[in-house]
C-alpha cells in the first residue's frame, strides 16, 4: 500500500468517525425519545408508507451505524465501502421516516455518506485529479447545505429578529441569550435581530465556501460552525455539523502532498 493510499484510508477514518460521533451525540435524547415516547405513544400519518411509520424501524435504524465500528478499527477499502453504504442507508431511512424526518442531521449525514461512499470506491487512487475532486465535492456539499439555510432566512420574520426572539431569546433555557443580556443592556428584541443577522451572515459565508481555496475555507468554515454551536445553544447541533466538519478537516491530511497551485 502506497503512502497516499494509506492516507486516503486515514482520511476516511477521520471523516467517518466524525459522522459516527455526530450521529450518536444525540444518544441521550434518542434513548428517551425512541424507548419511551415512540414505544409508548405511537403516532401514524397516512402520508408516509406503513414501513416508514413503524417505531421499530426508527429504533433499528438509529443504531445501525454501530456496524461500522470494525471498519473504523481496521480499515480496508472493502470495509469502508460497506460502512459507507450502511451510513447512507441509515441517513436515507431516517430522512424519510415519520419519527425522524424533520431532523436536519439526516440531510447533512445523507450527503456526507454519499461523499464517503464515492471516496471509499476511489480511495485506491493516487492521482491529483482524485484529490481535487474530493475537495471540490466537500466544498459543494457544504455550499449547498448552507445556501439552503441562508435563503430560507431571507424573510421578514428572520430579518426583523422576531423568529429568533420567539424561538430562542424569549426562552429561559437560551443560555447564550442570558449571557448576552447580562453583558449588554439592550432590548432582547434588538439583540435577537443582531443574532439573527449574525446567523444569516454566517450561513451566507458558508454558502460561499466553494469560492475559497480549500485549506483556508476548511479552517474558516470549521470555526464558523463552532460559533454556530455557541449561538444555537445546544451541543446537539454537532449532530448536524459534525459530519461536515469531519469531511472538511479530514482532507487537510493531504497537506504534505503537493497539489498543483495549492502548496
Amino acid at each position, binding site marked *: 500500500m502506497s503512502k497516499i493510499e494509506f492516507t486516503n484510508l486515514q482520511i476516511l477514518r477521520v471523516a467517518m468517525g466524525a459522522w459516527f460521533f455526530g450521529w450518536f451525540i444525540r444518544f441521550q435524547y434518542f434513548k*428517551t*425519545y425512541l424507548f419511551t*415516547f*415512540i414505544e*409508548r*405513544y*405511537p*403516532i*401514524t*400519518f*397516512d*402520508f*408516509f408508507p406503513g414501513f416508514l411509520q413503524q417505531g421499530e424501524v426508527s429504533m433499528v435504524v438509529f443504531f445501525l451505524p454501530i456496524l461500522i465500528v470494525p471498519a473504523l478499527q481496521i480499515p480496508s477499502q472493502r470495509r469502508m465501502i460497506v460502512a459507507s453504504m450502511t451510513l447512507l442507508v441509515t441517513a436515507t431511512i431516517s*430522512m*424519510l421516516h415519520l*419519527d425522524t*424526518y*424533520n431532523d*436536519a442531521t439526516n*440531510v447533512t449525514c445523507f*450527503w456526507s455518506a454519499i*461523499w464517503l461512499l*464515492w471516496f471509499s*470506491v476511489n480511495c485506491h487512487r493516487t*492521482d*491529483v*485529479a*482524485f484529490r*481535487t*475532486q474530493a*475537495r*471540490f*465535492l466537500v*466544498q*459543494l*456539499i457544504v455550499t*449547498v447545505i448552507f*445556501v*439552503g*439555510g441562508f*435563503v*430560507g432566512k*431571507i*424573510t*421578514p*420574520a*428572520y430579518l426583523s429578529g*422576531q*423568529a429568533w426572539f420567539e*424561538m430562542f431569546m424569549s426562552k429561559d433555557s437560551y443560555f447564550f441569550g442570558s449571557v448576552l443580556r447580562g453583558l449588554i443592556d439592550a432590548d432582547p428584541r434588538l439583540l435577537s435581530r443582531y443574532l439573527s443577522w449574525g446567523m444569516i451572515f454566517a450561513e451566507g459565508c458558508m454558502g460561499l465556501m*466553494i*469560492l*475559497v*481555496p*480549500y485549506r483556508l475555507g476548511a479552517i474558516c468554515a470549521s470555526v464558523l460552525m463552532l460559533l454556530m454551536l455557541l449561538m444555537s445553544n445546544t451541543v446537539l447541533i454537532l449532530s*448536524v455539523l459534525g459530519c461536515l466538519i469531519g469531511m472538511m478537516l479530514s482532507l487537510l491530511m493531504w497537506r504534505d502532498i503537493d*497539489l*498543483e*497551485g*495549492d502548496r
Partner: protein
Amino acid sequence: MRDYIAKLPLVQCFTVQGRRTPGFYAITLALGLALVLQCLKLIHPATQQSFLKQFHCQTRSFAVWSLRQTVPSMYSFENQVWWSRAPLDGRPTFTQSDLDAGRYHVWLNHFPLHFVTYNFYRDLFFMESDESYLHLESSFQHQNLSSSYKLERDHDVVRIIPMRGAGDE
C-alpha cells in the same frame, strides 16, 4: 487574482488532467440541481410554495416529497403551530400556551408538523379527550401556507388526519 482562482478546487478539479468517474458527475449534477432549486426559492413564488408544502408534508406524493427531502432547507421560514383540544377555525388568535386550558402555541425552526412527533410530550395527545386539533402556518417572503390537522386517538395509536389545505397541490 489569477493565482487565487487557480487555487479553487472548483477550478482545479475541471482543469487538472485525470479521470472523472460517472459517480463524480452524478453527485455534482445532483448537488447542482439542489443549488438551482435553492436559488429559485429566493425569487420564484411557485418554488417557494413547493418548499412550504414540503414543510407541511403536503407535497402531492410521497415519492416527490422523498426526492425533495434531499434538498437541504433546514432552519428556514417562519413556522408557527397552534394546538388545541377544542376545534380550531382558521388562524387561532391565542399566543400564550396554557396546557391546563388545553392549548399550546409555539414557533418552530422547521417542519412544524414535528410538533406532534419529534418531542418529549407525545403523551399529551393521548390524555383526556380522544381528539385534538392542530393549525400550522408557514410564511416565506410573500408566500403563506396554512394547514389543519385533527389528531384522533384510535385505541393505542394517535392518527394525524389532514383537514384543510393538506394534499391540494
